[in-house]
């Protein structure tokens, strides 16, 4: 896929995210920050397709920051893992499209929602792949706020100790946790240096630049007896200037009119006029 094609796909995913941000709402800001990452990973990096979802030799992606369902399902709907019409069933109890992932959705490897869980679950899968001499990759995506959880540091120690060099941990570094900037609450800088000190390969990258993502992911030091972390620097709300980098636009529940205005904003960069309540804390 060319970068233009990737950009086109990412735009469709963003449209899906915006469309899910009404009638109950969803975690819009956090989903927009990792939309490009998912587009890149599933299009260019991961050996995961509709055909191999049951194949033990496939690559694995575990979404630990579970509230990014709109980005994940938004992509799954575009690449055929689920019918696009199923997104209309958001928050409908007759389907299973709710705020956090579950394995009844094809392509979801494990449920999440409680933060700090999937690094260790991914490590169990990575360990088994190594025990079986498989060469597939195991990817786990966490947030940056998620790194407040003690369990992620426990996992970071254990993965390095057991040399899980088929494990790739991606941090969606959007500099926000639920309701405020990460550096205001629990400062995390520098994530790269912290993980290096823990014995990891650690790499910073612009999480919205497909060319740089390609450079980084095509040269990962896999198999060097260390697990690898990629700190993807992103922007919360990316693509919608009216909600970008705003602490109060994490969970969004817009009116239909606002959704239409935001869809226009995506395409024409014309700031939407938003009056919906901000700071809906979940």
């Amino acid at each position, binding site marked *: 896929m060319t970068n233009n094609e990737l950009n086109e796909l990412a735009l469709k995913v963003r449209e899906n995210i915006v469309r899910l941000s009404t009638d109950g709402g969803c975690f819009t800001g956090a989903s927009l920050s990792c939309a490009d990452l998912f587009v890149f990973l599933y299009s260019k990096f991961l050996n995961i397709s509709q055909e191999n979802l049951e194949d*033990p030799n496939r690559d694995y992606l575990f979404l630990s920051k579970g509230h990014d369902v709109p980005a994940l399902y938004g992509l799954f709907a575009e690449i055929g893992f689920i019918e696009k019409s199923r997104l209309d069933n958001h928050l409908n109890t007759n389907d299973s499209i709710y705020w956090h992932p579950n*394995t009844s959705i094809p392509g979801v*490897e*494990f*449920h999440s929602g*409680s933060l700090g*869980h*999937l*690094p*260790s*679950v*991914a*490590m*169990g*899968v*990575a*360990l*088994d*792949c190594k*025990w079986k001499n498989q060469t597939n990759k195991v990817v786990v995506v966490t947030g940056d706020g998620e790194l407040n959880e*003690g*369990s992620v540091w*426990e*996992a970071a*120690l*254990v993965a390095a*100790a*057991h040399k899980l060099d088929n494990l790739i941990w991606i941090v969606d570094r959007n500099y926000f946790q639920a309701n405020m900037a990460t550096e205001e609450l629990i400062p995390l800088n520098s994530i790269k240096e912290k993980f290096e000190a823990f014995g990891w390969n650690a790499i910073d990258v612009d999480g919205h630049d497909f060319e740089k993502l390609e450079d980084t992911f095509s040269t990962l030091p896999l198999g060097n007896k260390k697990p690898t972390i990629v700190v993807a620097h992103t922007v919360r709300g990316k693509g919608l200037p009216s909600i970008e980098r705003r602490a109060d636009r994490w969970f969004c529940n817009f009116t239909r009119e606002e959704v239409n205005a935001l869809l226009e904003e995506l395409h024409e960069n014309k700031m939407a006029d938003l009056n919906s309540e901000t700071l809906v804390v979940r």
Partner: protein
Amino acid sequence: MNYEQLITELALADERYVIMTAENRALVRNIPNNPLLTNRFIDTGITEQTMIGMAAGLALRGRVPIVHALAAFLTMRAFEFIRTDVGIANLPVKLTGFIPGFLSDGNGPTHQAIEDISIVRGIPGMHVFAPADEEDMLVMLPEIWHSKAPSYTRANLIKPLYPHDKNFTIGKSEVVAEGATVTFLTYGMLFNQVFEARQLLEHQGLSIGLVNMRCLKPVDEDVILKVARESELIVIVEDHFKTGGLYSIVAEVLLNNQQTANVQSLSLNESWFKPGRLADVLSNEGFSPEKIAVQTMNMLETRQHVNTLTTSTH
């Protein structure tokens, strides 16, 4: 045969089984030295949460992880991982909790798993086992490990006083004796104490029943309802808080079946136990055979007294 030999035999026969520990090697000390099990054993260090998360990941790959940690830290430090990663996904992860209940003897309240049964049984689909002694445990484990259900087992290396029924079925208890006056329902390391208390009471000419409630979930409802019908008094003896353990389980079974019974509890009520040498702990807390027998006699006398009063006022 001991625990380690059993787990080795099982793992060598079936490559689905993997052995994990959060640096609690007491039950699996020699496994890491077995060249045939190199790629089947992992010690994650003192990381109960990470161990459980990894166990879930291994189970996703078709493995059956048997995991080891001290019962208190396994069931409480890692509880949300057990509930969320193992429970919600209903994965066949087999938890073995070391030094549960009074077996933490001199450690102190930090190490006292005396609410473990209460919290673990609250997870949908999770099985809970508490063998009476080492032999009972070795009888039960093959069945437990072959089952598809996630489970928690209270490890127990106490030497047996009683030759257990070698046929163990999940959901069934072991009726050691039937009794018209009193029936003891107990599990785990207190079985031996209650076994001896029963003998003391039988020497007094009383008819005393004893049931080894080795399987706490799914529980043997039929046996509970039967002793409720046939015994004058049920005495539940457990090294667990009164809340949420076997006393609560029996209450739930009776209520669900609209049945009533005279039930008394010898358990830990709203307090941790005073740590010390195991025999001293048992005596101090009132769980030596003599003290169980005396407390039971007192319960019977009180009942008799109440009965007399009730009769005389009519």
